């Protein structure tokens, strides 16, 4: 009887390949790979913090100025800074995901990776973990500065913050999946797509204004995007002191759909790259 690939004895040097532990080991290997890159370069770490810090300072000072001149700004203290910090969670998490993947192409390492037993889903999980790590590196110092400079404590949002955070991060992963899929298929010519995709959502997700501000025809588009619910939820808390739970549930439901679609797009583009031969041509 002929042996199938699964029945051929394992090499003594290697561990069992198909177990959950083996899968976790591969994911950990990739997380380490990206962590080593972050650790090896202080300019890269500084770059993670730079834009969130600039944004936070600009909106913080603007809010301080407005608070001196308008009663609304006094009432809505923290609205702009809160919106900036939440928006940066979406942006930094998406970029953290996509840029980690771009590292593979910049370093011409994709061919090596695709030849290892690493599964696409494991690569995606590793990128998700790394995006969270980068998010922590970027946002913790900025959130602390927001507290000490402008008296805004993100954690004062309590449970709502956890829910906002989760919704934004899941959405960022969905965007990251599409962005990396596009780069996989079309190579570095599509790199700018990975950097810019998230900014399409800045006007549509109503970061700094209510959905009602948008023209009627655009409002359904905004309401189809999970981050819109987060920013509406933030305004409800800051202005009215209420946490609108059903908005967050709707956001979660939408996020599940987007994440499934994002992963399907990633898988499709990966397969398409194998058909078109672009995986072996990746590089600067």
């Amino acid at each position, binding site marked *: 009887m*002929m042996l*199938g*690939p699964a*029945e*051929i004895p394992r090499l003594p040097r290697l561990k069992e390949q198909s177990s959950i532990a083996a899968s976790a080991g591969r994911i950990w290997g990739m997380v380490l790979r990206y962590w080593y890159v972050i650790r*090896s370069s202080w300019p890269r770490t500084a770059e993670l913090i730079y834009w969130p810090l600039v944004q936070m300072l600009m909106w913080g000072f603007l809010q301080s100025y407005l608070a001196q001149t308008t009663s609304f700004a006094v009432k809505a203290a923290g609205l702009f800074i809160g919106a900036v910090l939440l928006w940066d969670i979406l942006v930094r998490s998406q970029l953290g995901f996509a840029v980690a993947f771009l590292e593979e192409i910049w370093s011409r390492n994709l061919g090596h990776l695709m030849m290892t037993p690493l599964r696409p889903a494991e690569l995606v999980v590793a990128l998700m973990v790394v995006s969270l790590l980068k998010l922590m590196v970027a946002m913790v110092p900025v959130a602390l500065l927001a507290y000490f400079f402008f008296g805004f404590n993100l954690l004062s949002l309590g449970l709502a913050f956890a829910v906002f955070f989760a919704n934004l991060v899941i959405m960022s992963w969905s965007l990251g999946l599409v962005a990396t899929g596009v780069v996989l298929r079309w190579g570095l010519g599509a790199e700018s797509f990975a950097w810019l995709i998230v900014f399409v959502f800045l006007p549509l997700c109503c970061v700094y204004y209510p959905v009602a501000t948008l023209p009627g025809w655009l409002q359904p588009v905004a309401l189809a995007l999970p981050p819109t619910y987060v920013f509406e939820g933030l305004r409800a808390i800051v202005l009215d002191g209420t946490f609108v739970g059903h908005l967050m549930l709707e956001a979660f439901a939408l996020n599940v759909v987007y994440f499934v679609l994002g992963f399907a797009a990633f898988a499709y583009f990966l397969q398409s790259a194998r058909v078109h*031969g672009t995986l072996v041509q990746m590089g600067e």
Partner: protein
Amino acid sequence: MLASSACQPAFLVAHFMQKPTSHNAGSPPPPVEARKLRKVFREVAAVDGISFALANASVTALLGGNGAGKTTTISMLMGLVVPTSGEACVFGADMARERHKVLHRVNFESPYVDVPMRLTVRQNLEVFGRLYGVRDLKGAIAEIAGELRLGELLDRPYGKLSAGQKTRVSLAKALLNEPELLLLDEPTASLDPDTADWVRNKIESYRKTRQATIVLASHNMAEVERLADRVIMLEKGRIIADETPAELIKRFGRANLEEVFLAIARRGASDAGVAP
């Protein structure tokens, strides 16, 4: 339980083989097998219906000029490119559909594919060791570092190494999982003669000690003569010669493989006396 794979049934394999192989129903599948392998990019056939099977513990050189189809063939054997038709099989697994069943038994080395530049040699080996699920990773890295004289380089960033040092690191990465199948794409390109000779010695030694099957793409004909026991020559995506280096040299009446290669490249396959 038998794995269902287009690459498994031996009686069908024999039907499709351009050259007969020794394996039959009941024997393990060959390490590498191409069956009517074809890849078309934008209506141009980069690989045009080639078939071959490699014996266990053999070294086979894939030769051909630029655009002959070597890289596409190797890419299909690695599962990085999906064939338009036919099958690329490795250890009985169809690489287009079930590559993850066998990838832990395979590795490759190419000077054209880097490992991350910013990571140190040790970090790179650690990452790849985890991806391959290497047992006692620390010990394995120490062992391979000793074998490949990497001890002093382990804590230096890969990007700051010389070409020869990078090749040694790439080779360490390629041997870390003790692959049964090793794919080498111009393993000594841009190396000085001494380092190139050292690399060839290591490849020979690894093949002997581990009984590994090696596929070698190279433009260095002296290297091919020394390492390979079989040459598959490609032109325009087709196999135009498939024999031992000695047989090829004898058939062409030339002094060495380099002259054979030049004769084929300059006169075309039919004029040079090789059957397409």
